[in-house]
């Protein structure tokens, strides 16, 4: 097998069109990394400027009523991820700006895609675009004649007479072509690592390694199937057209169809329904601005009892702040219920879609790629949860200040000073750690491995029917 492998690479090195194509591909892959890095850098700069600007605005509040400040609120922006230059995932589709304020959990808005007309259906020139769509095509073109050309030239008979087993030949050809794809992949990952040397850490390296493994599996599957077809069919054109057909079905048809189907199986509410349901649940509770609410009366009785006084005016604290926080706590339960259901539906959709990897390894590759790059919906949802947790801490600080900062009930003119506003922490995003989300991608890796085993099985059991003589 080693000799077959060596011969194949010797052939590649002596084939001018392949050398030219390889150089072109390597340049485009490196170019995509450079552009991707530059874009991430520019986006990060914009993010930092916006973040600092917003923090400066918050820190410059001289004196303001804490509840007024809760309505004034702040904004958080979605930071660019270092691995975005490899695979941007859903980042251009999801919004970038999230308003953090009292009484409401907002949704992230102003996506990049909504800020201009349509450009590319398959995304920007990221490494993932080239590695997922173009490199497999190149591998198909390299592999579709690998065995049939040996048959047509009569070399196959010669090789078999010399003692080469057909399976070794097929495996050798597969591995040598697959290694060509893995070589391109390795150059991409290496270029990425070199350009981001200062930012590399075990988390990024771990993610990049899994990214590399996922693609390697896929390249083996594509190459193995094409070589197998080349061995089974006399006419190389049939092997080529069959593989192109499979490529179209795997990469263009099935992902679209399966994604649309899972949205039907696990339906999401419309925005109108979602908002109405939350409003309905919210109205059942305590409205922070509605003095006639029964729950407010209960709360009032409880607080008066706790402080051992008869009226709100006797309270040493500001009851309005307590009302606001109580309302927030109730609101949080409502948000948890509805946003929780939404996240649960999205998780079910993802799981169902991942199962599609059983019939289409490209789905597993796509999931693993954007997942390990930290840019899939799972990571996006983690980000949203972090922002919401921050919002709760942020609003509680303001409500507590309103309640216990020194003002009395009904004193809406009371203002907290600048020191207090400066003491409210800014939102700091903690990137999701791979170890915590890895179990979600095990199924993708498993399907890629199962497909690889299936391809090996095809070779072992199917190659016996190959016509040699």
């Amino acid at each position, binding site marked *: 097998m080693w000799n077959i492998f060596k011969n194949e690479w010797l052939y590649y090195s002596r084939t001018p069109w392949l050398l030219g194509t390889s150089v072109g591909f390597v340049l485009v892959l490196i170019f*995509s990394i450079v*552009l991707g890095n530059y*874009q991430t850098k*520019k986006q990060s700069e*914009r*993010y930092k*400027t916006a973040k600092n600007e*917003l923090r400066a*605005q918050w820190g410059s509040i001289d004196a303001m009523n804490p509840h007024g400040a809760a309505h*004034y609120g702040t*904004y958080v922006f979605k930071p660019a991820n270092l691995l975005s230059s490899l695979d941007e995932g859903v980042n251009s589709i999801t*919004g*970038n*700006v999230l*308003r953090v304020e009292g009484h409401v959990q907002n*949704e992230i808005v*102003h*996506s*990049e895609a*909504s*800020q*201009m*007309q*349509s*450009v*590319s*259906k*398959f*995304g*920007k*020139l990221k490494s993932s*675009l080239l590695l997922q*769509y*173009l490199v497999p095509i190149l591998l198909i*073109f390299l592999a579709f*004649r690998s065995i049939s050309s040996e048959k047509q030239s009569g070399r196959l008979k010669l090789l078999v007479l010399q003692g080469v087993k057909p399976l070794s030949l097929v495996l050798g050809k597969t591995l040598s072509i697959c290694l060509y794809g893995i070589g391109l992949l390795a150059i991409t990952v290496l270029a990425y690592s070199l350009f981001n040397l200062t930012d590399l850490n075990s988390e990024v390296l771990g993610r990049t390694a899994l990214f590399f493994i996922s693609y390697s599996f896929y390249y083996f599957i594509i190459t193995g199937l094409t070589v197998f077809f080349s061995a089974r069919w006399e006419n190389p*054109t049939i092997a*080529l*057209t069959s593989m*192109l*057909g499979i490529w*179209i079905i795997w990469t*263009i*048809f099935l*992902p*679209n*169809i399966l*994604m*649309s189907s899972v949205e039907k199986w696990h339906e*999401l*509410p*419309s*925005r*109108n329904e979602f*908002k109405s349901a939350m409003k309905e649940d919210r109205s059942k509770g305590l409205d922070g601005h509605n003095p006639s609410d029964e729950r407010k009366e209960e709360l009032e009785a409880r607080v008066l009892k706790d402080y051992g006084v008869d009226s709100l005016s006797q309270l040493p604290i500001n009851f309005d702040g307590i009302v606001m926080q109580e309302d927030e706590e109730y609101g949080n339960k409502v948000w948890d219920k509805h946003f929780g259901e*939404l996240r649960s539906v*999205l998780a079910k*959709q*993802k799981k169902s879609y991942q199962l599609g990897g059983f019939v289409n390894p490209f789905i597993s590759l796509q999931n693993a790629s954007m997942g390990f790059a930290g840019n899939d*919906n799972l990571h996006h949802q983690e980000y949203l949860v972090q922002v919401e947790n921050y919002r709760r801490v942020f609003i509680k600080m303001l409500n507590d200040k309103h309640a216990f900062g020194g003002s009395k009930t009904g004193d809406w003119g009371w203002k907290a000073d600048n020191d207090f506003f400066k003491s409210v922490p800014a939102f700091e995003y903690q990137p999701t750690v791979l170890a915590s989300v890895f179990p979600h991608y095990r199924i993708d890796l498993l399907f890629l491995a199962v497909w690889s085993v299936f391809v090996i099985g095809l070779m072992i059991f199917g190659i016996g029917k190959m016509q040699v003589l």
Partner: protein
Amino acid sequence: MSALNIFLYEWKHFTRNPFKIVAVLLFIVAGIYGLHNGYKLYQNHTTEIEKIQEKIEPEKQKYLTQYEEGKLTDENRPWIDMSTPFWAIWNTPTYHLKTPSPAMVYSIGQAEQYGFYKRVTFWASPYDADMAEEIANPERLQTGTLDFAFVLLFLTPLLLLILLYNLKSAEAEQGFLPLIEVQTVSKNSWLLARTLFYVLLTALVIICLLVYGSVLTNAFNTAKDAFGQTLLYSLLYLIFWSVVYFFILKYGNSILGNTLQMVGIWLLFAFIIPAIVHQNISIAKPANLMTDFIEVRDKQQDLYADDSLFQQKLIDLFPEIENSPVYQDSTKINFARNRSASALVNELKKESIQPIVEESQAKNDFIQATYWFNPITFFQNKLNSIAQTHYNDYQAYRNEIQALIDKRTAVLVKELWNEVKVDKEKYLEYDQELNHIE
């Protein structure tokens, strides 16, 4: 050999080639699936709009009953007085809806990236959070929906490739080409006729799919122009690829070489060029984080803090209030001024939106400048435009919302400063006026 004979031979060749038949069938299935996806979205939008419209009437009726019964205040909210313009206009339900075009069945375009209904209030803006897209799985949006436009733009070249890839080169490889040259007038016209056969076959399939789509949403009757334009651009697109492939076939003599070139050109136009353009825009103009829009909060606070500036800005915007009865009465002026705040904030928001719109326009101009070498993006946006699912259609929708907000705040200021008393007739007048764009 006449063109008719070549057509007849090609028909025989086609019917004996299961691979080509399967490709055509798959294309038809994908087309029908795509049309149904477009139809489903059209239906969803229509149903959602109907639901919203159903909510408007009872809400309006509730206030009309209040006027009829003379209950102009709310027991729980005593500050509300429906006889004043502020609360009457506040409680005049105004929604602006983007009704989907029946041609959406052909191209979903950017319809899933934007909101299509909006409640217009004093404090609204076309860039509010509720103008975001419908709730959807971002991974699905990223993968994209397989609509008819997708089938046309990305699968038509592949179908043509499968139908044409071995024309002439198969004969050349088998050594029949000299024989054919003897039998036909010219090798080129023979190749042209054969190519034309498959182009006409593809055109027929596309036309049938377009007609099927028009049956789903009645587009042929209700959006005749859109149907005609979609047909025209679909055929132009088909001709574009046919010409490209014809020249590859004309100058190529091997199946593999032709296939490689055809796939290469398809990858170049479908993936590489649009992806490079997209990447360049993101570098030149990264996603706008709307900080200009956010700054309105602070400008608003500054405005509130300075009474004389506030009043001057209000007079600059509405000079007629200087002659109003409220302006002459110092006891009422503060109250009216505070209630007019939304009109000034609306102006601040409009100023802040302008650079955002300009930046988006610059991005669009950049994309349009690449059309001459980026045909798929050109045709994609053309089809989106026809189906009214293009960025510009949603920008026009935003502009209409802004016009309604402008009108609402202008009416508020005019009525407020003239101390208009609102009754049922006046409320109905508001309802008429605030719901229509002039």
